[in-house]
């Protein structure tokens, strides 16, 4: 269970350009389910995902991941949790240019100091899941949009995370690729991975993969709960 309790996030506090991105949000997200955060841009979806994914700390309020309070942990502990628990898929594919697809997939595991050969084998396996093993040595610039998206997903899976966080994953994909992406998500879900998506793309929130759709606006949750 991921529980968000009374969380607010204020940027530039005390300055004239103070901006409240989240306002006293409370939310419970059970594990092994797929949740979609839905809302227009600027509604606070991304900020909430960042807080849940241990990328930033809330200004007030608490967040628990599996009963562990993560709000007051120092950065190095947050990173540890982030690395081992979460896999991220971003709006842009956010791959590092100039190096091979394989290396890109391996990058999240570098700080663990895992043996190179093991790590490489696992990365190849993840790429293989998406039929990309032939493209492993290719540089990112040479990949097509769909391939790049799949490499990014492979990267999110390299540490075998329990939770996948995807922020507007289909924003830069055409409908075919978006459907293909949802297919992959479905597959992951069937393996028991918890998935949290933020999107305002109907292909995502109307998909039957989503167990739960939370609607957000202006930094508040306006509608949420189990899909009927």
């Amino acid at each position, binding site marked *: 269970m991921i529980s968000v309790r009374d969380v607010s996030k204020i940027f*530039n*506090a005390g300055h004239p350009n103070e901006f409240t991105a989240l306002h006293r949000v409370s939310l419970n997200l059970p594990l092994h389910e797929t949740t979609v955060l839905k809302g227009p841009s600027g509604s606070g979806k991304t900020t909430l995902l960042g807080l849940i994914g241990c990328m930033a*700390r*809330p*200004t*007030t309020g608490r967040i628990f991941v599996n009963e562990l309070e993560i*709000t*007051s*942990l*120092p*950065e*190095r*502990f947050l990173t540890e949790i982030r690395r081992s628990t979460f896999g991220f898929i971003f709006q842009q594919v956010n791959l590092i240019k100039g190096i091979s697809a394989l290396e890109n997939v391996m990058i999240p595991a570098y700080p663990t100091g895992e043996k190179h050969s093991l790590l490489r084998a696992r990365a190849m396996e993840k790429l293989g899941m998406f039929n990309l093993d032939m493209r492993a040595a290719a540089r990112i610039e040479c990949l097509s949009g769909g391939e790049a998206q799949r490499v990014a997903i492979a990267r999110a899976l390299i540490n075998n995370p329990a939770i996948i966080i995807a922020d507007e994953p289909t924003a830069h994909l055409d409908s075919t690729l978006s459907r293909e992406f949802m297919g992959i998500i479905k597959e992951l879900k069937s393996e028991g991975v918890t998935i949290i998506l933020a999107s305002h793309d109907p292909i995502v929130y109307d998909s039957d993969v989503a167990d739960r759709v939370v609607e957000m606006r202006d930094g508040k949750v306006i509608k949420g709960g189990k899909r009927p």
Partner: protein
Amino acid sequence: MILNPGILALFITSLLISLMTIYAACHGIQILRRWDIASGSELQLILERRTYLISTIVTYFLAFQLVSLFLFIQTADSICHLFVGAMCAVGTLTVNSFGYPTLLLKVLTFIIAGLWLILNYADNRGYDYPLIRAKYLLLLILAPFVLAETVVQCFYFFGLTPDIITSCCGTLYSQSARGIASEILALPVIPAKILFSVSMLATCAAGMRLFLNGKGVYRLAALSGITFVVSIISMISFISLYIYEMPSHHCPFCIVQKEYGYVGYPLYLLLLSGTVLGLGVGLLQPFRNKKSLEHIIPAIQQKCAGAAVVAFVLFTSIVSWQILVSSLKML
């Protein structure tokens, strides 16, 4: 001042190190004043990030300080013949009254920086920054010593004037014979030997005890400190004599020279690390009750104690080996 490359290098380095330390100390003060772990404010976030900067600076500082300690001795040794009557580094250091204080401060700052890193290591393992205050107070203690070292070293270098013939007519300098004593007053050999063996044995025993059943923390710390001083005294009193095979050359510096197989480097390195580790164990003790460090500190202490014992034992074995192979016979 002597425009010697070694002196310039030391000069530039200590200047840079001082600047970095001032910078770190300023941030340290801010951390001490504004730290609030419970807050999620941006200021707190910035402060937490600064802790990375400061530990990076201190880590580099320690590395540079160690090399500069040896470079200082090496340079002092290499320019000794510029001074009438100076036979080795000892002579150069006594040319003016700032030589030894510089060396002393270098050793002191090295030890404090080492202790800081041990504290930092423990702190980084607690999830709520348990030692943050102690750590930055120690940094504020370290900073004045670093600055003092730079200033004293400046005075020392500026106070060096070589005795060369071009600056005057002929032998004027030689005649004035300032008579730099090349020898240090040394403790008589037998008491020094007894003192050395007793303190080494006691320290290693205390270290083993701590390693095995976690008892006697302060004892180990105190003994490490004492052993450090005793070892330096012994170095002057008798160890160096065996290494030089010369019953009257009480010099703690010449042993880093090539003629003696650079044996001084491992010796001083082991002694310094043993001392820092031993003292670090004691430094951590008051924080043992912090909740987030309950299990971490004893583990670190055990590790440190073990490493300290290894360092001291290695030190002693090198010393004993040197004494055994030495051709010098003393009572």
